[in-house]
């Protein structure tokens, strides 16, 4: 299962709503909440497919203006292929 971390940039005043909405997603953990309006989340899914879908879902969340990928670990994926 791949693991990735993302930085979610929220519009001013929107971070609370976004955090509570994203907390409801089973494959996502919010790790940090920063004063500059960013949330740090870790995504843990079955496939890269699901990661990309989740990334897109976050991007389309109302109040989110940017999502960027920091770290992507896919060791298990390699094990599966070999």
């Amino acid at each position, binding site marked *: 299962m791949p693991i990735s971390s993302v*930085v979610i940039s929220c519009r*001013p005043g929107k971070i609370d709503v976004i955090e509570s909405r994203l907390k409801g997603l089973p494959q996502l953990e919010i*790790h940090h909440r920063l004063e500059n309006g960013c949330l740090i989340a870790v995504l843990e899914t079955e496939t890269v497919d699901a990661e990309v879908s989740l990334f897109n879902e976050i991007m389309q969340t109302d109040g989110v203006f940017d999502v960027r990928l920091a770290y992507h*670990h896919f060791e*298990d994926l390699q094990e599966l292929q070999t």
Partner: protein
Amino acid sequence: MDLSRRDFIKTAAAAAALAAAAGGKFAETAEAAPDTSGLKWGKAPCRFCGTGCGVLVGVKDGKIVATKGDPKAPVNKGLNCIKGYFLSKVLNGKDRLTKPLIRKGGKMIEASWDEALDLIAAKFRESIDRNGPDSVAIYGSGQWTVFEGYAAAKLFKGGIGTNNIEPNARLCMASAVTGFMTTFASDEPMGCYDDLDVGDTYFLWGANMAECHPVLFSRLIENRLKNPEVKIIDFGTRHTRTSQMADQYIKFTPQTDLALLNGIAHIIVRDKLYDENFINQHAVFKKGKTNIGYGLEDKFKFADDPKPITFDEYKEFLKTYTPEYVSGLSGVPVRTIEEVARLYADKERKVNSLWTMGFNQHVRGTWANNLVYNIHLLTGKICKPGENPMSLTGQPSACGTTREVGTFTHRLPADMVVTNPEHREKAAKIWGIDPKKIPDKPTYSATEMFRALDRGDIKVVWVQVTNPFQSLPNLSRYRKGARKGDGRFVIVSDIYPTRSTELADVILPSASWVEKEGVFGNAERRTQQWFKMVDPPGEARNDLWQTIELAKRLGYGSLFPYKYVEKEMWEEYRLFNAGQGKDLAPYEAYTKARGLRWPVVNGKETLYRYAEGHDPYVKPGEGIKFYKNKKDDGKAVIWARPYEPAAEAPDRQYPFWLCTGRVLEHWHTGTMTGRVPELKRAYGAAVCEIHPEDAKKLGVKQGEKVKVSSRRGSIVLTADLRGRGKAEKGNVFVAFFDENKLINELCIDAYCPISGEPDFKKCAVKLEKA
């Protein structure tokens, strides 16, 4: 992977994100923390676009198992865009090419490297003997590493003795090059990405940065968050994700950007908003030929005839472009044109212009580039931190390889050209060959190269790191031309099967990205190096090795006498650049740095070219000096370039404009991103974006099929009335990544006569419910 390791990786992942997002003490903590993941990390620029983001690649047991944004990379500061996910898979698709293949009896049969290369060499020799060196060609790309491009240029120009070398960058960046050359006599920008952080006014001209350069767009948005004065104004012919985020979206009729730019200059001159001192010190005025044609005929030739004019004559030229006249052409309200001109000229504002294919893929692409520079030169908003025009690039080394190495038919490294005897002399000296070996005439630009293949003037073409039989305009002609027989022989080197490999006589399996050592150069003059980190699969080999192997078989092995090929080739290559305002550092420096922006003099990179205190070539007291333009005494050129219509505009029979381009999930022709199944689902097939009112008139609903036809071909697509991108009335947009929907069959192969770059953004189509 056990639970404790998963927890460990999750913590490391969160720490990496925190360090990138928060910086300061978090970054220091993250960097100081020991890496106990068991991975070996190496640095590389991202494989995809021209932004040049830094990526750290984690390798375990000879395989890539992780990637992260490089926190030391100044471009992206530890964060990547969604394409970072694709890096995990682009090298590992199931259908990766791993053996050379030779066409035998209509089938592609596995062969050894020796067999394939001997056959290629025999075909080259045979064609050269029978038809001369101009009957063989190589077609590469802005994804070539510097070494691959350099080796190809050296072999073809300096060995075989033909200027038949072109890159796909002719299809994307050539107008930027001719724009820079005609205005400043030196290619590539004066500014850099730092301008995104410190300016306050950003005009985007047809550039969908949010989707195509997301990391750079993030920098812009962060700047705006910190500074409420920041304004982003998006000029477009299509409402995009970028338009949504901009402060103002200004739609205009395709092709009328030329009129708008002159209209802005008209107001600046009319109301004396220009910087007279700057103009007197740093600019001259010129005009060139008009009604210059569209390159639609085979073997089209054009030579401009620049003539000096006075400021008063330029003012006279601008008189036509009244706000009312420009508004009539462009559809932009008079008031908006007036406001925009004042914003450009506002002395309190730091103004930037950014563009990509909207200006470059344009039958007057060179002019569009000239005209935007005009505005910056008139207002003196250039060569200063936070105040610059900047042409963004689409490929990772369109700048570093094709433009700097000069892998175009007319070029040599470091802005030199084959038509100049001194330049040929210099190249020949560095290459250790007779100057007569390098032909003094350019042959074919990219489109003309494939026209020549179709006609049979070119018999043998080797395609490396690109997919022309999906990406050329008026595609059907060139696809048919490739398989006409009669001695034609097509070689394609790639990592996956593509719409080009299917037309090949020989397919060679290539190594990609960190499967080889390389150097790329990005859009802000940043040169970035990486080492090989993993082996390519099967028998796949570096394109550099492939080219040198052909050279040996053709008797030109002595052109490549290196032991450590990359390092020695670099040291040879940088002899071209030394002392030319394009200086590059020794190879060692790049192995350590997260890229350096040239000119690099005495180990120091240059953020702002032509500016005293930044550029070491500008002497104390000179302030700003466009020192490369020696023939105009170190001044830049303000050009009188008129509005001229597109090669093909909508009419009764074909009433819509067709624009093609990219989407976030797919990169170019999709040969790498298309290998990632989830992306296919996210944006599976190309769709036709139509304005809801146009769709209603056609009786087409969301998701229904629509037949799109031009004078060159037809295609059936799904109509999209409410996608991320929204077509304006009378316009449709189709992305070109989809190998099953070859939209480029509909595009016209008209090009800018000065740059040779085709216009993929404008042709006329009709729509029918399918």
